[in-house]
């Protein structure tokens, strides 16, 4: 199943855009970059379905659309069910000779709200049924479209409009749901994490997800300048740091077998390379309240949970001995 396709910068530049310019994403939008990169991996005829969310809203407004391929949005919580319907229809219509006899890929896009929270039931069901589609989670770690409310994907300690940094409670008390691990536990053939900074890796993983026979899940970290409170030119830098400090390590699980991807593997082999979380947190206004004597211990807690999850991942990758 693995893609032998090597993406070069030239390939990427020359490949026609599917998400056209003119859409209304914010400057420095991580999700827009993530989607554009995923779409560079498209291999042929493709239908896209989109959960309600930032990218759905910014990429269409009647009578305009940024999409060069067939695209449908129906609601917030059902994008995986939508993908199921498209895939089933394509299969039967092709079998009956009612559409062209060629394979059409199906890609579903959803944000963290549409995946960790309201969409997890439909996602779980679609994956259990084994539909052949790629699900791309662009994770900007809160409900950004509605004005920065916390989701199951928001990290511990982050301030959002529904987990504000109060004088008593320092941002979100709960921890980020390990969504990609939950998807691996479904026994699906392909799960991976990716970051826009590592663009080649992101495109390659998207392509693998498209090529795999059955459901594939790609979790892309997608920083949001508005919600994370940083300058718009820092999106790519933050996308790199979040991997380097192991808050968001890069890995793949092929048929449930975890394997670290190169940048994270290098850290596993050489733990001195692992950056502390502090620099990353300090760059973002959503963690500003943690840099006060009253709440500084939350930074230690974020470091502790990051280390714990990293160690757990290393075990899954059977790399614990080198960590």
């Amino acid at each position, binding site marked *: 199943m693995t893609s032998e396709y090597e993406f070069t910068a030239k390939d990427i530049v020359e490949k026609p855009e599917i998400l056209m310019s003119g859409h209304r994403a914010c400057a420095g939008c991580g999700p827009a970059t993530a989607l554009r990169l995923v779409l560079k991996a498209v291999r042929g*005829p*493709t*239908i896209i*379905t989109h959960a309600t969310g930032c990218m*759905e*809203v910014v990429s*269409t*407004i*009647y*009578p*305009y*659309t940024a*999409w*060069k*391929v*067939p*695209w*449908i*949005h*129906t*609601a917030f*919580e*059902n994008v*995986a*069910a*939508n*993908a*199921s*319907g*498209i895939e*089933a*229809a*394509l*299969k*039967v*219509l092709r*079998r*009956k000779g*009612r*559409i*062209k006899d060629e394979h*059409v890929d199906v890609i579903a896009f959803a944000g963290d709200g549409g995946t960790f929270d309201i969409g997890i*039931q*439909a996602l*779980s*069901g*679609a994956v*259990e*049924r084994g539909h052949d589609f790629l699900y791309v989670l662009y994770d900007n770690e809160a409900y950004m479209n509605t004005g920065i409310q916390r989701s199951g994907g928001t990290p511990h300690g982050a301030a959002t409009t529904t987990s504000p940094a109060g004088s008593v409670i320092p941002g979100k008390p709960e921890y980020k749901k390990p969504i990609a691990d939950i998807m691996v536990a479904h026994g699906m053939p392909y799960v991976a994490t990716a970051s826009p900074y590592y663009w080649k890796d992101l495109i390659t993983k998207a392509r693998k997800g498209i090529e795999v026979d059955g459901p594939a899940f790609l979790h892309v970290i997608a920083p949001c300048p508005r919600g994370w409170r940083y300058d718009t030119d820092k999106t790519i830098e933050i996308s790199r740091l979040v991997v380097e400090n192991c808050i968001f390590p890069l890995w793949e699980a092929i048929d449930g077998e975890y394997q670290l991807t190169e940048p994270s593997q290098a850290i596993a082999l050489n733990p001195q390379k692992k950056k502390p979380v502090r620099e990353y947190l300090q760059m973002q206004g959503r963690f500003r309240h943690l840099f006060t004597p009253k709440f500084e211990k939350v930074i230690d807690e974020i470091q502790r949970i990051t280390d714990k999850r990293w160690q757990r991942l290393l075990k899954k990758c059977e790399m614990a001995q080198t960590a």
Partner: protein
Amino acid sequence: MEVAKQKVLALNGDEAVAYAVKQSDVDVVSAYPITPQTIIVERFSEYVANGEVDTEFICVESEHSALSACLTASATGARVFTATASAGLALMHEILYVTSGCRAPVVMAVVNRALSAPINIHCDHSDSMVERDCSWIQLYAENSQEVYDSIIQAFRIAENPEISLPVMVGLDGFSLSHTLENVQVLPDDVVRKFVGTRQFPFIKGHEGKTVPFKLDPENPLSMGPLDLYDYYFEHKRQQEEAMQKAPKVIQQVHDEYAQTSGRRYGNGLIERYNLEDAEIAAVCLGSTAGTVKTVVDELRAEGVKAGLLRIRTFRPLPVEEIIKALENVKAVAVMDRSLSFGGYGGAVFHEIRHILYDAHIHPYVVNYIYGLGGRDTPRNLIHKIYQDLQKILQTRRVEKPVKFIGLRE
């Protein structure tokens, strides 16, 4: 056209649905089990398992996903079907609007059942009545024969490019869904020819080409975009215009079907039963009409000028037809098998009284709430309703316009 040779099968309402779907060359069925709809999905699963249909059957994890998958399968160009009841329909609520808004011609059987709480598995019309404003065409069947016939007709109505709206066919839980009847079925090839292949409206896409309205890699369209105050209102108006075109199409499909099956249900919109010279009449929908017809016969034998108006098509509401049907009636009892809590009577009552306001005919119109949660509605209750109407005519007085009937007071 000649009436086709038909065989008689012993089917309950659910089986009649499954059999009709089996014959209608459906591409995708996506459904979730709920009492009293389960027999539909069970039978259909057997057809799939035995290779009797060429259909993708998606056994989803909820009704919300059932309709979501139907919607996009339909948008991709498939003929689709689903079935549900009660809480399942309520869970679909959000996607009912999205389906009609996306103009996806989904066909759904709704096996009418009470809504919780308290939980109750038996028939009333609370589930589909609450969805009457969601831009789905609503047909209500009187018996399993009509269920079978209506499902087949529904595909032709929904997929008519002038309409392109979803259709729900209501059948009463248990009294139809689980009750064995003799059902005449058409030969497979006759049904297949009748339903034909899916037709598409042609629209001007964003790239300027006129293309079939579906998700097609060769003619990309964006469906379900953000649509704000500058266009949303026009789109809703177009939906309503399609609804207003539906009565004609429903009648045409009904007439064409009658030619090959030999069966008619009034004019496809309403059924008049002894209404021509009726002084008193009941209005109802669903299986209750069968009981009411028996009572009308009994009253006629006694010389009472009683009649019945059965509404087969509740959405779109056949306004002119209803006015004409009730033109000479002096007192009308509207029977509602659902409640509009805090309102003035039930949903059907609202419509009938409202229509007659403009009609320059003003019969007495009273409302009976009956049969909630599967409460039996025997002949003596219907007799009571007609007696009330007679009393109203004698006294020229309505004591209580909205009454509950057949329950502990």
